[in-house]
């Protein structure tokens, strides 16, 4: 075995079922008597429902049931806000089915259940809805005028506002040598995991129990909401996640369908399956990004940053969903980045429009704020004739200043504190690895007829924390096999391997003796979720703590069995040994067998087990640098990313294969979002990008090989393992680095995205020489 399992590039055990096609995703669940649901969605961005006639649909052969909000009756519920509950947002919640108005294209209106999905879709075609079309409002600026209201009874489209105020920004601006003001815009795009959402709900009338497959990310919270909605005891609702085809923030949140499908099963007493198709996914699952920012910066002539001020506008869509004000508020949360900026003021606006609701996408808000800030720094460097790298280096928070308290940047009781890091060191290593200095000569028009540019962005990204805890339970069984039960969900990351690594090291057994189980609310009564790169931080530390407790219990039991003092014992590779003595090792399995057969009532339970929760509100922060080399064809506007580097300090690496996987995958997802992906609304509020022919995900030929350098220079002081989580560092800096690279190449200032050929051509045209 390796010196330690933590840090070793161990192949994932999850892989075997995936490469052999034997994984079990929610659509692979097939239950006796299962029926299939399809959902009728609004074709209008804003309309009043005059009437819904389901009689034709109900008469079709194979149709089991068609229901509308009327049938849900008093169980009617709304999608709850679970975080970033800015006052006011709770007046804009989404019902399970449209009440009397539809407010975005794709809003659920009715549900058809039939013997097959084909027949259920036939039923949708036969539902007659009489709509009175209303005026829609699609643009944040227009929405701010409140001439057209998304929720008329609320009287305004400004659903909520949050203020950040640190130091005295106005004073700093008044006294500064240099100020600049710019408006930046990040477009609307979304996660698009390869597996769409899906639910199989099975209400067993005899037992009065509900089993829901396809839950993930936040199974305990979703269970809590659905149990309350259906008026069932929570412990009689079992939420199982199965295998999950990616998350990226969008998957596993609670949506209207999470009410509708269990409701259908309870109503019919049959297992009901609903698998979202891709068009539905693009129309109905959370959209993300689309935050606009008026950013002002104040500095001394020498480049010393003094203050920033920001007006941030989040395009929330038609309903505030589970994330509340998270996307725009997170944009404000780390807008100051890794820099010493003592004065910071922001006003964050949550604005309603007739679009799909806004939710998270890998590093929500942080991708946006990094773009705004890093673009602004490049502009400032140009204005002040400073080297952009030197400008950054000068303002980076130093190791001596860390822990560095930025202040209260979130609607939270906890200030934002940068926990550990050597920011200048990461910058230096990034520049060296990228051969940044050697590339200085290639800026602008080159022999290949293209304009080349290099762009840099520096990011910090909060990981872990946000919700207070995760838990783990461990039980030693026959042969010394250790079962690890996690409270946290997995959406493709690799917990089954990584958590076994952590457990093996802390417990003193070999990894192959450990099995990790997750994704079932029966395994633990409570848990939060897999988001914000918190899996390794929260669940990893829970596993670590549980393993240490279990080890103590094992050694105490072994001490009783051997009649020695427990302090003289330890557990190594699954054997209880007495260091410094000639005593033979006692295999853990033997101890277990002995306890199983000979335990007496006085000695207690035969199980060796432990349960622990890692509980921390402290937020860790990874940090690092993105560097991009791009070439732009000035005549076609086509952008090619030639070289891309991500450097991230993750505190401590549990499995380098997986960390690299996260980094490279995130970078490609980021490049796709910045260059290709966009959710476009057209006339009458119609979403024009409802297939993968229109919504363009990056493919292998759209991206270069991604280089990555993972650092472990600054373990987090906040948790026993020192880990920080690695899921988002690869994406946070993409918009900033690419925006800077294209600006650098063309001598323009990129302020909005995506970097599509049409847009790039427009910038070149505006430059006047193209």
């Amino acid at each position: 075995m390796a010196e330690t399992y933590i840090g070793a590039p161990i192949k994932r055990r999850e892989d075997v079922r995936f490469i052999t096609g034997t994984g079990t995703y929610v659509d692979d669940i097939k239950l006796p008597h299962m029926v299939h649901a399809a959902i009728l969605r609004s074709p209008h961005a804003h309309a009043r429902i005059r009437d819904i006639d389901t009689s034709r649909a109900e008469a079709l052969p194979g149709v089991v049931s068609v229901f509308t909000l009327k049938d849900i009756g008093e169980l009617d519920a709304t999608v709850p806000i679970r975080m970033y509950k800015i006052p006011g947002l709770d007046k804009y919640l989404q019902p399970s089915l449209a009440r009397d108005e539809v407010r975005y294209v794709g809003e659920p209106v009715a549900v058809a259940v039939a013997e097959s999905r084909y027949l259920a879709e036939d039923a949708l075609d036969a539902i007659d809805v009489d709509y009175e079309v209303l005026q829609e409002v699609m643009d944040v600026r227009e929405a701010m005028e409140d001439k057209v209201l998304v929720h008329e009874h609320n009287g305004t489209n400004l659903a909520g506002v949050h203020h950040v105020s640190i130091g005295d920004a106005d004073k700093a601006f008044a006294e500064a040598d240099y100020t600049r003001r710019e408006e930046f815009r990040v477009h609307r795009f979304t996660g698009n995991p390869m597996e769409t959402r899906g639910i199989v709900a099975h209400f067993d009338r005899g037992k009065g129990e509900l089993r829901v497959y396809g839950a993930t990310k936040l199974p305990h919270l979703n269970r809590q909401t659905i149990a309350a909605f259906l008026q069932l005891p929570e412990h009689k609702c079992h939420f199982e996640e199965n295998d999950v085809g990616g998350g990226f923030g969008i998957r596993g949140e609670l949506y209207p369908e999470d009410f509708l499908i269990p409701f259908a099963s309870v109503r019919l007493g049959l297992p009901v399956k609903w698998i979202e198709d891709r068009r539905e996914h693009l129309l109905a699952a959370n959209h993300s990004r689309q935050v606009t920012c008026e950013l002002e910066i104040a500095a001394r002539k020498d480049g010393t940053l003094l203050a920033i001020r920001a007006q941030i506008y989040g395009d929330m869509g038609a309903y505030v969903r589970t994330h509340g004000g998270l996307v725009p508020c997170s944009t404000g949360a780390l807008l100051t980045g890794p820099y010493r900026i003592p004065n910071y003021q922001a006003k964050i606006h949550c604005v309603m429009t007739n679009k799909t609701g806004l939710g998270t996408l890998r590093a929500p808000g942080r991708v946006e704020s990094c773009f705004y800030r890093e673009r602004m720094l490049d502009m400032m460097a140009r204005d002040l004739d400073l080297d952009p790298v030197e400008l950054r280096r000068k303002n980076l928070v130093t190791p001596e200043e860390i822990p560095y308290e930025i202040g209260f940047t979130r609607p939270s009781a906890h200030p934002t504190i940068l926990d550990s890091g050597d920011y200048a060191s990461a910058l230096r290593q990034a520049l060296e690895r990228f051969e940044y200095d050697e590339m200085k000569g290639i800026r602008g028009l080159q022999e290949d007829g293209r304009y080349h540019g290099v762009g840099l962005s520096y990011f910090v990204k909060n990981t872990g924390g946000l919700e207070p805890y995760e838990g783990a339970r461990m039980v030693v069984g026959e042969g010394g096999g250790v079962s690890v039960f996690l409270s946290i969900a997995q959406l493709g990351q690799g917990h089954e391997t990584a958590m076994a690594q952590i457990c093996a090291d802390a417990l003193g057994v070999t990894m192959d003796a450990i099995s990790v189980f997750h994704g079932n609310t029966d395994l633990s009564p409570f848990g939060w979720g897999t988001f914000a790169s918190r899996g390794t931080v929260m669940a990893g530390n829970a596993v670590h703590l549980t393993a240490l407790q279990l080890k103590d219990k094992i050694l105490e039991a072994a001490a009783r069995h051997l009649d020695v003092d427990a302090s003289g014992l330890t557990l190594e590779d699954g054997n209880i040994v007495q260091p410094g003595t000639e005593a033979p090792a006692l295999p853990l399995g033997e101890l277990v067998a002995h306890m199983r057969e000979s335990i007496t009532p006085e000695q207690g339970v035969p199980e060796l087990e432990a349960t622990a929760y890692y509980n921390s509100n402290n937020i860790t922060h990874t940090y690092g640098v993105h560097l991009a080399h791009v070439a732009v064809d000035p005549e076609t506007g086509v952008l090619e990313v030639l070289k891309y580097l991500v450097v991230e300090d993750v505190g401590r690496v549990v499995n380098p294969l997986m960390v690299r996987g996260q980094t490279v995958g995130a970078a490609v997802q980021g490049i796709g979002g910045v260059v290709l992906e966009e959710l476009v609304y057209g006339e009458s509020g119609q979403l024009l990008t409802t297939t993968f022919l229109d919504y363009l995900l990056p493919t292998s030929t759209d991206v270069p090989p991604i280089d990555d350098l993972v650092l472990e220079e600054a373990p987090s002081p906040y948790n026993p393992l020192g880990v920080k989580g690695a899921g988002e560092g690869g994406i946070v800096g993409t918009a900033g680095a690419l925006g800077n690279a294209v600006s650098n190449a063309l001598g323009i200032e990129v302020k909005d995205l995506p970097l599509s050929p049409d847009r790039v051509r427009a910038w070149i045209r505006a430059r006047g020489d193209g």
Partner: protein
Amino acid sequence: MKPAPFEYYCPETLDEAVSLLEQHGDDGKVLAGGQSFMPLMSLRLARPSVIVDLNRVSGLDGIAANGDGGLAIGALTRQRALERDAELPARNPLLAAAVPLIGHFQIRNRGTVGGSLVHADPAAELPAVTVALGADFVLTSAGGERVVSAADFYLGYMATAIEANEVLTEIRVPAWKAGRLWAIDEVSRRKGDFAMVGVALWADMDGANCADACITLFGVGGEPVRVEKAEQRLKGAALDDATLKEVERIVSEELEPDSDIHASALYRREVGGVLTRRALRAAAERGTEGNGA
């Protein structure tokens, strides 16, 4: 996302196929490779009540020489078969170069030449190339055959001259002229996507000067767009920088594309000109080497 119900017929002869179409009139729809039509059915944007699947009709595929040194391509020939045809680059280099630009290889494995031509996506490669090559389409119905030139076949946005009772059975491509210069180029958002703008062109030279030329663009209108004014400008001229710049300007001026989510009309006009200039230069630089005849 599942197709609406339909009746399915799988004829084994062309006679059977066309009589089925005759019988079902506008309710009938031909299914060939299905690479464009199946998505439309799954999205329920197309809801034919009768499907006539051509895939088992014998005698509709294959690439043969026709009498005048040109090609007779069966409409059901898979795009991949063209791609794999070792002779094709010599017999018609422009067509050979166009095929790998269609979708991805899994799509070309199933997609047919005729299917792409009849589907008539304005941004597709094959309709533009057949127009550029002056190909003729053989349309067969129960009443017999008629031949329509590619240029006359395309009638506007996804509209063609084919009748509901007809099947495209063969594509006749005239002989490739010895010494002909050619190029195809396109800009798409991603590799394999439909083009935002594309151009397929050829030029026959008389010494240093162009004797005849054809410039066809795709993705810039409802159908393949031939820019005859630019062709005229080329005739008698050398393919020098000044001429090419001039052709670029003419193409940009002549195009009347629409805007969509991927590109504005202005972008398409500009880049249509740029691509034409670049393609002509590439054609001239490549010369007649590896040029078939």
